[in-house]
């Protein structure tokens, strides 16, 4: 039997302490969040998710609006990202070559690493008014009978604006994932399409349908990413606990709520623990979705590489 030599073991041990940090951090984080949320679950129980109120002085809390808000904005963000990322990925993968391709790819990379606060500033000062005038108000005028569009946008800060803004910010991330998947499809499928005289459109349709599981996984991962977005949300969502079915009304997301209220939470008895429980919900959803998304892509990749 080949024993690992003493030197190998020493090498491993020398790497161990610092490497384990990642594990330690994750475990510590999860424990902290869970422990700090227990109080609120015990005290409030399901009341937390059936009402929508933030009243620390009276110690009355209801997280329905922020939780729904987080889910709604993320869903909108993913929709926006789908509409924008998919064509962009197709553009880069199929239509661009050489210099143009590297320029556009670099721009996408640049977008992807950009600090979100910059997006937040631009979104709150330019995107929101733009959306209000050119999208929300027209939709409200033309289709007010649809509950989603039934309220008049006042300043524009709303679930809708937050969703679109966050969507724009995750476009690079989703594009990168879709491109990676698209480019893992073996050449032979593309060659097969052209070989039978398909047009570009028809070929792309085939490629997309081949990549569909990976694209969906990319959207799921984008959703998880959108859930955690804070600065853009605070700047565009309107920061109101009012829960309505209208997309154009101001609302809240969990992260925006925390950003606004956590600093003062220690003044009250239950505020902090309630906020912890709200982030626990988000973290759980995000981790589960991330896990599901990544494993789907891995499985898809092993199936597609013949």
């Amino acid at each position, binding site marked *: *039997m*080949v*024993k*690992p*030599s*003493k*030197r*190998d073991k020493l090498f491993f041990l020398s790497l161990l302490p610092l490497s384990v940090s990642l594990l330690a951090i994750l475990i510590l984080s999860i424990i902290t969040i869970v422990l700090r949320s227990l109080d609120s679950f015990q005290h409030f129980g399901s009341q937390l998710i059936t009402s929508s109120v933030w009243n620390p002085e009276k110690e009355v809390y209801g997280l329905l609006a922020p939780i729904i808000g987080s889910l709604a904005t993320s869903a909108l963000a993913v929709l926006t990202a789908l509409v924008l990322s998919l064509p962009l990925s197709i553009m880069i993968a199929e239509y661009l070559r050489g210099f143009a391709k590297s320029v556009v790819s670099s721009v996408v990379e640049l977008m992807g690493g950009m600090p979100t606060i910059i997006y937040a500033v631009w979104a709150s000062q330019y995107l929101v008014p733009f959306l209000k005038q050119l999208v929300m108000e027209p939709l409200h005028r033309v289709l007010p009978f649809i509950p989603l569009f039934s309220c008049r946008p006042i300043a524009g800060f709303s679930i809708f604006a937050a969703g679109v803004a966050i969507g724009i910010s995750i476009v690079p991330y989703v594009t990168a994932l879709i491109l990676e998947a698209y480019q893992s499809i073996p050449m032979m499928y593309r060659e097969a399409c052209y070989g039978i005289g398909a047009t570009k459109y028809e070929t792309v349709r085939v490629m997309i349908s081949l990549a569909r599981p990976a694209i969906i996984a990319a959207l799921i991962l984008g959703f998880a990413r959108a859930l955690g977005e804070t600065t853009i949300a605070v700047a565009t969502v309107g920061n109101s606990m009012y829960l309505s079915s209208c997309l154009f009304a101001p609302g809240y997301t969990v992260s925006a709520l925390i950003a606004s209220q956590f600093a003062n939470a220690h003044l009250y008895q239950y505020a902090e623990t309630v906020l912890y429980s709200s982030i626990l919900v988000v973290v759980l959803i995000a981790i589960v979705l991330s896990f599901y998304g990544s494993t789907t892509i891995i499985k898809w990749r092993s199936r597609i590489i013949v």
Partner: protein
Amino acid sequence: MSNVSVYIKSRQILSRVTLKIPYNTVFVIMGPSGSGKTTLLRVINRLIDLVEGARIEGSVKVLGFDALNSDPYELRKHIGTVFQVPNPFPHLTIYENVAIAAKINGVAKSRKELNDVVKWALEKAMLWDEVRNRLHDHPHQLSGGQRQRLCLARALAMKPRLLLLDEPTANIDPVNARKLEEAIVSLKDEITVVMVTHSPHQAARVADYVAVLYDGSVVEHGPAQQLFLRPSTEVAQKLLRGEM
């Protein structure tokens, strides 16, 4: 080595191999592809450790060390290896590639000693004349044959007592291959050379002793002259006739 059997992931690669390799000779291990030659070499320098799921039975003594139970890093200080695919360090210059072997093993202590060793190693590897004016170029600027000779120089700079060569000319043009063979033969006074090849002609050119490996077992071994003139097993005969 005695009764060495090697299993990789429950497939048997070597079966009860027993060989005695005399010092200061060129010992060639011949055999068709897949017979386990590379694995045999890797047992000697403990590179078998890098293979996943490898299991070794038997005992191996190398240069006085119990190879299987010693510290492999210590063991490898005395063994130079040249691989089938040339692998000079791409981030080092030609000079540095050879020098690093000498530096790490404490062969040279001063700048001057280092220069001397590098020159000596490159000369022995028959590469000095071609690179003397471009010692600061990088290996990717060399041809495949030159890279392999660089690898030989690197192995020699360690001043090893044992040199292992795994099909060193497999990926090289015939001219360079000849040069390499010349270099190998010239080494045997100072070093023990164990070489693996699948070409019986090459074996005939360089070997003092030969062992024929087939399907993980040694089917025949002995002094080169004897084996080439009068191969006693069918396997060896087929090999020499080029039928394998």
